[in-house]
C-alpha cells in the first residue's frame, strides 16, 4: 500500500491483506540497503495470522520516494509519523540489523505506544568495517559481496534455502544491487554513527525479543550482551549455525519464534 506522508509516497507491503488498524499492528523494518522484500514469507505469514503487517520501504528504498535519511534517530522519528498517519495506537516493532536499531530508538521515543519489540541481528554497536563503508559510499559493488559474505553463516554459504530452488547469496546480492546509488552508503554511515543503544534500551518498557544467529559475524552474539542487560523483560532466542541474515537463513524458525513470542506477549 502507498502511504502519503506530507506529499511523499511511503510504500508498505501488507502481505496480501488490507491494512486494518483494529488488528494488532506489526511493523517490519528492513536493514541497510534492503527493502520490504527482505521479509518475504514472514510478511505473508503474519498478515494471514491475525496481524496487520506493514513491511516498510524506508525513504529512498524500494518503492518509497525521497532520499535515505541520515541517522537512526531521524528514521525513528519518520517511523512515528508513518504510524500516526495510519492511526495505529499500539504497534509491535520488528527490525533486522539497521532496522533493529531503528526499532529500538523508536520504542525508546514512545515506549507507551509499543506493545512489543523484536530485534533480529542486533548489537550494542553496529560498527561497519572501514572497507565496507568506503565501498558502499563509492557505490562499489564489492560492498554487496562483503555484506553477502559476512552476512551469511558458513553453513548457509553451502546453500540450503528453505524455499526450494532459491540461492541465498544470489538473492542477497541482487537485492542490494537493486537499490539506488548512495542508499547503502548512507545507511551504513547511520549504523556506524549510532551509539545510543544502551540509553535507548533503558527507556524500553515493553517485552523484548532478541533473535540471535549463533554464527553472526556482523553483529556477533557477544556484542549484544550489554544491550540485553539493559533491557527489562527481555527474551533471548539463539538459532544455531546461523549468521546475520537470520530472516533469510531460517525462514520457518523465525516465523515460529516470533509467532510464539507474540502470542505470549498478548496473553
Amino acid at each position, binding site marked *: 500500500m502507498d502511504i502519503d506522508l506530507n506529499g511523499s509516497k511511503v510504500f508498505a507491503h501488507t502481505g496480501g491483506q488490507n491494512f486494518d488498524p483494529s488488528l494488532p499492528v506489526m511493523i517490519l523494518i528492513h536493514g541497510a540497503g534492503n527493502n520490504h522484500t527482505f521479509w518475504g514469507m514472514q510478511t505473508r*505469514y503474519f498478515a494471514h495470522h491475525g496481524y496487520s503487517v506493514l513491511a516498510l520501504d524506508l525513504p529512498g528504498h524500494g518503492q518509497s520516494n525521497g532520499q535515505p535519511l541520515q541517522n537512526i534517530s531521524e528514521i525513528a522519528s519518520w517511523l512515528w509519523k508513518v504510524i500516526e498517519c495510519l492511526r495505529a495506537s499500539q504497534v509491535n516493532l520488528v527490525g533486522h540489523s539497521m532496522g533493529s536499531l531503528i526499532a529500538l530508538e523508536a520504542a525508546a521515543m514512545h515506549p507507551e505506544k509499543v506493545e512489543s519489540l523484536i530485534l533480529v541481528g542486533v548489537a550494542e554497536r553496529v560498527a561497519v568495517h572501514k572497507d565496507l563503508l568506503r565501498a558502499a559510499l563509492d557505490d562499489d559493488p564489492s560492498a554487496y559481496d562483503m555484506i553477502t559474505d559476512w552476512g551469511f553463516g558458513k553453513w548457509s554459504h*553451502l*546453500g540450503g534455502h528453505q*524455499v526450494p530452488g532459491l*540461492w541465498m547469496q544470489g538473492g542477497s546480492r541482487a537485492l542490494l544491487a537493486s537499490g539506488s546509488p548512495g542508499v547503502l552508503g548512507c545507511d551504513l554511515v547511520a549504523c556506524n554513527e549510532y551509539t545510543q543503544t544502551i540509553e535507548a534500551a533503558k527507556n524500553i518498557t515493553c517485552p523484548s525479543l532478541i533473535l540471535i544467529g549463533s554464527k553472526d559475524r556482523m553483529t556477533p552474539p557477544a556484542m549484544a550482551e550489554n544491550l540485553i542487560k539493559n533491557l527489562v523483560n527481555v527474551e533471548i532466542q539463539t538459532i544455531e549455525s546461523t549468521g546475520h541474515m537470520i530472516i533469510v537463513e531460517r525462514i*520457518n524458525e523465525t516465523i515460529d519464534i516470533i509467532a510464539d513470542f507474540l502470542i505470549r506477549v498478548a496473553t
Partner: protein
Amino acid sequence: MVEAKFLKFDTLSLHAGQHPDPIHGARATPIYQTTSYVFPDVDHAASLFNLERAGHIYSRISNPTVAVFEERMAALEGGVGAIGTASGQASLMLAVLTLMDTGGHIVASRNIYGGSHNLFLHTLPRFGIQTTLVDPRNPDEFRKSILPETRLLFAETIGNPGLEILDIPLVADIAHESGIPLMVDSTFTTPYLMQPFKHGADIIMHSATKWIGGHGIAIGGVLIDSGNFDWEKSGKFPTMTEPYLGYHGLDFVEEFGPSAFVMRARAEGMRDFGACLSPQNAFYLIQGLETLSIRMKRHVENARAIAEFLIEAPEVSWVRYPDLEGHPDKDLAKKLLPNGSGSIVTFGIKSGGGGARKTGAIFIESLEIFSHLANVGDAKSLVIHPASTTHQQMDAEELQAAGVGEEMIRVSVGLEDTADLVSDLRQALRLSQK
C-alpha cells in the same frame, strides 16, 4: 582492502544446495522418491499453499532432491534461483509462458536447436505468440526486429549447429534498452565455460541432459533467474507486476523482489503446466555436476585436438570450431569463453561418389567409437548428420539460413583417448570417399 570470500566453482559444484542428511548422515544427496509431504497440522498446510512458509507440498511443484540440483545450478550460474524441468524444452516453454500471453512476440536467433526453432515458428503461433528470427552475428537485427509487443530476446550462447558465439553484452544492451530481458540457452557452454549473467543475460536455460548430466542417462532441464531484470521499471510484464488471481492477488515483484520471475515460474508454471524434473533424474544430474569442471576441461582438450586433425584431413572441406583461426567469432570466443569453446565440432565432408548425403551416411556408419545418435554432451563421443535428423523439419531455405548444409557433420567430442578418436575418424573418412 578486504575481499569477500565465497566458495569457488569446484567446491560449489560438489556441495551447493546440500548438507549431509541430518537424520541418517547420508553424504550423497538422497533421492526423495515421494510425491508428497506430510503436513504437521492444518494451519501449516494452509501456510505452505499460501506461500507464507517455506517447504515442499507436492513433487510436481518442488522436491528436496530436485531442489539440491536447482540450488546448485543457481549457485554455479550466480543467479537468485532455479527451477528444474522435465527437459530443456520444458524450460524454454516455461520461460515463454511465464513472460507473455497471446499477442506476445519474441526475437530469437535463427541459429538454434531444431526443437526450439519449431517451437518458435510452428507451435507458439498457434497460441498467438509470434517470433522473428535473426542472424545472431548481426546484433543490429535484434534491435530492428523489436516490436512494441516484444517480450523476450533469445539466443544460444553457442549456436547449434553453426557454432556462432553470441555477443551477449551487446545483445543484452539492446534488450535492456527496450525494457526486455535476454534469455540464453547455455547448454553448449555450461557454467564452467561461461556464466552468462556476468555478461548481462537475465535468464539462462540449459538442456541439462547434455554436459551437465554428462553421461547420456537422464533427460532434464533447468531455468535460472539472474534476479537483475527490473520488471517494474520495464512495465511490460503484468505477470510479474500485477495481482495474480491464481494466488489471491499476489504481486510477485512486490512480494519477492529479485526472485519474482523464478517464484512466478514455479508457483504458476509448475502448478499448472507441470513439466517437472523427477527426483531420480535430478540425482543423476547432480552426479554430473560434481565432475563438471574436470569433464569440461577434457571435453575441450579433445575437441581442439579433433578440430586440428580435421583441418588437415584431405576428405574434409571445412571445419568449424570457435577456437580455430579463421572462425568468424574467434576473438569473441577468446573474450567470452576463456576456458574453451565447448566440445562440438562441425565439418563438411567432401562429396564422394553418391553425393553429400550418401558420403555422410557412409562416414557415419563406418565409425566404430563415435555413436550415431541424437544427443550431444555425453561422456562418449557422438556424431550426427543434422540436415537429416535434428534439423530435418527445416526446409532448404531455413537450413541455409541456419547454416546447415547437406555436407555438414556434427561431432560431440567425448572423453575417450584422443588418439583413439582421431584414428576412428581417419578410417571412417577414408571409407567415405571410396
